[in-house]
């Protein structure tokens, strides 16, 4: 199943992700070690990155741990932030049908934005197993992310350097994602709805409590706009 050809092809496909995950993971790890006062902070950086494998979440987690954000808030925020993952599987249902459960479990567990993109692109060499290709891509990406975050945390907790301002990596990541999303016209009204809902809720709630009401208002508004936006989608 895992022939040299399939592994080589998967590794070559994963190279762009190598760059991205090592760098972003490193920044997230430095921030994690800088904000959290716990014994063995690098171990926790390793564990959090290996289990949830989610970029934006990794940045948010350091703030949550620092402030001891209530777990219900954590669950709701994780849900809204990662709801997009719930759509990815639809295009992979067919391909993953009938494979051993542990392979399916691993492929689902590791389904990040980047891994999903590579699996959909699917550069399996002719005559090889596309499941082997997907598993290899998923494992490479998983490894890059864990190494990036853990190395960042080890560096951040071991080397004393002026890391003031490195937290901007999270803001920059969100700005980049938003810019990409707004290239597509159909995403602009939803983005503006999220922005507006948060600003409006900001008038009534404190910074610590604003995200939950914002998400509720945002969802209500998006449901109200459904007729208009769903129509646009079919046109586009």
């Amino acid at each position, binding site marked *: 199943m895992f022939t040299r050809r399939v592994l080589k092809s998967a590794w070559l496909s994963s190279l762009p992700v190598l760059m*991205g995950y090592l760098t*972003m993971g490193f920044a997230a790890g430095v921030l994690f070690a800088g904000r*959290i006062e*716990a*014994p063995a902070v690098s171990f926790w950086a390793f564990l*959090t990155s290996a*289990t*949830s494998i*989610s970029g934006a979440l990794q940045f948010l*987690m350091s703030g*949550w*741990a620092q402030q001891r954000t209530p*777990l219900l808030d954590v*669950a709701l925020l*994780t*849900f*809204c*932030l990662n*709801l*997009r*993952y*719930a*759509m*990815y*599987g639809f295009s992979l249902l*067919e391909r*993953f049908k009938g494979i051993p459960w542990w392979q399916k479990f691993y492929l*689902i567990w590791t*389904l990040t934005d980047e891994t999903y993109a590579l699996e959909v692109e699917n550069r399996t060499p002719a005559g090889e197993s596309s499941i082997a290709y997907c598993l290899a891509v998923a494992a490479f990406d998983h490894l890059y992310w864990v190494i990036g975050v853990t190395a960042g945390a080890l560096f951040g907790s071991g080397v004393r350097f002026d890391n*003031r*301002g490195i937290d*901007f990596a*999270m*803001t*920059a990541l*969100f*700005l*980049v994602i*938003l*810019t990409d*999303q*707004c290239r597509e016209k159909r*995403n602009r009204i*939803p*983005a503006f*709805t*999220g*922005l507006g*809902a*948060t600003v409006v809720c*900001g008038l009534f709630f404190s*910074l610590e409590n*604003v*995200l939950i009401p*914002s*998400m509720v208002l*945002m969802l209500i508004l*998006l449901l109200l706009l459904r007729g208009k936006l*769903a129509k646009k*989608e079919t046109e586009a």
Partner: protein
Amino acid sequence: MNGMTLYLFQLVLVTTAVTLLLRAFPFIAFGRGNRPPELIRYIGEVVSPAAIAMLVVYCYWAYFKARPFSAAYGWNLPEIAAGVLVIALHLWKRNALLSIIAGVILYMFLVQKVFP
């Protein structure tokens, strides 16, 4: 087990469980090849840009609160300049890594050297 260790342990469990369930959703609910209802597909499409926009507002608000508008913090110029650089560079070059690294370097430089 001290309080932080317990919290981190719970954090791992909650974030992993929610993320894993989301990723598994199509396989659990539609494993037999049913198509998802229109409403679910609609929410899945529109919630992502909305949530990211919300987080951008949240991040900026956190900066404006921690570094109130004043000469001491450079009138929030570091946050605004770095944000503009990230967006402009990303519109131009479409390279996520480049945009983020450039933004972080400019921001760190501004808060450490220009408005310390």
